[in-house]
């Protein structure tokens, strides 16, 4: 029995997570094992330092988040990590994790599926970060990809079928986060009929759909690449955590700040772009009905950008923002650039004043929502 990364006894509905980070690939170049013949057919897939750290960051954040703020309190995290030889201790010296071979992943998946099925109001969270390729569906590579020379993909699993199969299983709320590439390579197209891998689960024509609230995010669109800075948390994973922390929050009917599945899907691209410094579109799953995943204990941070037009006015304006009904305005002296500031989400009076009276003062009230809000004030010259 593999030791869980986190386990708590929760009566009633609970959240169960399976988190996988594959950075070390024994049979790819520099992986330490027998290297497959002609690795270039897969585009020279290398050892990865980011996925183990990304998986660990995600698992740590789940574990350290307030359990009562989830739609169902966190009850288990099963973490499987294969570190890259160049970064053997992503969790620190002496901290090891169960390997992410295909057998280990399959065993973990089956056990996680059972935990998830204990209550239909549980929340299921599946996270994978590592190499991926695109065939008829996305193929996710376990750490022993290439172990069997006759079929390298015995060390991989088919994601789309797995996802479709799990839709027919409890619980009602399911989240799948896949941080991997979806490129087509000669090694996938060359086998007659295309490369295939077994799924961890299969859809069954006789079963009905059990999932009502789905959030499936893939960090890359078909035929595209997912990336990270080496030895860092990946762009997608960092963005995902920010979304859950409040970057994708909005207020509910009680004016409480909540993170809903549909809002995460809406916010994730801009959050990834903020991490990567360039657009890196993600793929979103079937969605179904939105639901609240996480409740915040207060308004989240928002990056507010304030500016005014016409352009010459910006260098003369004293820009300000003021939380509604607070009477405490925060001002910036005239400067030629837009004003970027982090504020708590909510209603604000924003405006521009001109000490030299070259333009008319202007202000208005706006709802400042996460993750970022840009507001431009129109001013009129005197």
């Amino acid at each position, binding site marked *: 029995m593999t030791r869980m990364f986190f386990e708590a006894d929760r009566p009633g509905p609970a959240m169960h997570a399976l988190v996988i980070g594959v950075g070390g690939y024994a049979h790819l*170049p520099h992986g330490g094992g027998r290297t497959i013949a*002609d*690795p*270039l*057919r*897969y*585009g*020279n*897939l*290398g050892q*990865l*330092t*980011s*996925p183990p750290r990304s998986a660990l960051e995600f698992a740590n954040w789940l574990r350290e988040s307030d359990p009562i703020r989830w739609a169902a309190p966190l009850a288990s995290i099963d973490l499987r990590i294969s570190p890259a030889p*160049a970064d053997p201790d992503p969790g620190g010296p002496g901290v090891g994790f169960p390997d992410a071979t295909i057998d280990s992943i399959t065993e973990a998946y089956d056990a996680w599926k059972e935990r998830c099925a204990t209550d239909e109001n549980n929340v299921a969270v599946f996270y994978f*970060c*590592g*190499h*991926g*390729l695109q065939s008829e569906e996305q193929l996710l590579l376990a750490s022993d990809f290439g172990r069997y020379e006759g079929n390298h993909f015995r060390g991989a699993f088919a994601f789309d079928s797995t996802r479709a199969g799990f839709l027919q299983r409890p619980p009602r709320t399911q989240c799948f986060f896949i*941080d*991997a*590439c*979806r*490129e087509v*390579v*000669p090694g996938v197209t060359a086998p007659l009929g295309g490369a295939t891998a077994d799924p961890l689960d299969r859809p069954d024509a006789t079963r009905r759909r059990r999932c009502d609230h789905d959030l499936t995010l893939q*960090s*890359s669109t078909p035929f595209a*690449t*997912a*990336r*990270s*800075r*080496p030895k860092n948390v*990946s762009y997608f994973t960092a963005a995902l955590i920010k979304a859950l922390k409040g970057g994708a929050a909005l207020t509910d009917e009680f004016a409480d700040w909540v993170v809903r599945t549909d809002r995460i899907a809406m916010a994730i691209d801009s959050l990834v772009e903020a991490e990567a410094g360039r657009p890196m579109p993600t793929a979103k799953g079937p969605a179904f009905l939105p639901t609240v995943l996480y409740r915040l204990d207060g308004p989240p941070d928002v990056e507010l950008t304030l500016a005014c037009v016409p352009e010459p006015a910006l260098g003369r304006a004293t820009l300000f923002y003021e939380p509604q009904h607070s009477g405490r305005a925060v001002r910036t002296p005239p400067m030629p650039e837009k004003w970027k500031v982090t504020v708590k989400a909510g209603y604000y009076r924003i405006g521009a004043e001109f000490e030299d009276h070259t333009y008319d003062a202007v202000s208005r009230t706006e709802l400042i929502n996460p993750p970022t809000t840009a507001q431009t004030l129109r001013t009129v010259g005197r």
Partner: protein
Amino acid sequence: MPIVFVHGVATRRDPGYAKSEAARAALMRGFLVPATGQVPFFAPYWGGQAAAFAWEHASLPQGDEEVFGPGEETPAILLGEVWESEPPPDDRVVLQVARNSFADGIDLLFGTAAEDVDPEEADGFARLAVRAAKLTRPAWLDTARDDVEVINRLAEDLSESADEEEAFGPDRALLHVYEGLSRIRGAAGRMTGRLAVKALRPSLNRSASMFLGDILVYLRQRERLRADGPIATTIATDLRRACEACTADDPQVIVIAHSMGGNIVYDLLSGLRPDLSCDVLVTVGSQVGVFAELGLFDAVRAPANPATDRIPKPPGVDRWINVFDLNDILGFATERIFDGVRDFRYSTGKGAFAAHSTYFIRPSFYDRLATRLREAS
């Protein structure tokens, strides 16, 4: 260091134009500006104002069949240049070429791959090509069994630790090299039993007609409209824009002109538009010398004593380098006609007819050009 590239004859906006232009620009930036790779780049397109064939090339001799599949013509040309006998077995083409000359092997692989690189991937591909051109002949070449082993060993030698980003999937630039190998195989297979030049006959006939056509159209425009001719205007506009893009930190303009492009740039700088200038002019596979001998430039007068009389380089040109391949029947020397120019010979090997079109797809050419430019400055 704004760079202006002026293409030669027979360049048209066909479906492959955007890809080849992007790859060429990226390779030029990658080799010539290795530190940043980011400089203003201008590539005036004048093919649209050049020769049009009213009967859509009905004047070409009939009877030749298309021999090569899609994307196989470039590897056939490259292979034809360096391999004069029967092509090697199709699973050992790159291996045999590289054993004869490692630089030729790199040129064959990367020149073929460059054709299929999307513009947005061109910079990454160029970075890989720059690293490949710097490799010295590896010892494993003597024991490698086939092309698949060659490119896998090469990929290993070219792998570098990801400093900035790692991808959770394939290396796109290496994938293009891998995919190019199948086109090299295809081209070599179809060349079996015939000489490369025979196999390429339809393509060479077409190129020759375009070559003649573009020259004649330019000369006619020049006769009628002088500097206001459409081709002259297109190129002059980008030469001016390049000068305007100079900054105090980056004051040099480099103009690289291929074939007829070199003749036109010389014509502009020496006579039609003396207000334009550049710091370095590189003419590649050009006919400036022949045009001068034929008296086709305003600035060139026939010498009283051909043994000693020389024409000064255009006043707006600080340095002038002329590069030609000894195997390029359309590339000519200049040193014995002009003052202030240096001829450099670049040899592709054994080919005879196709070298003219392959300068700018060869990493080895850019590598040597970068060396010459450093020497010149």
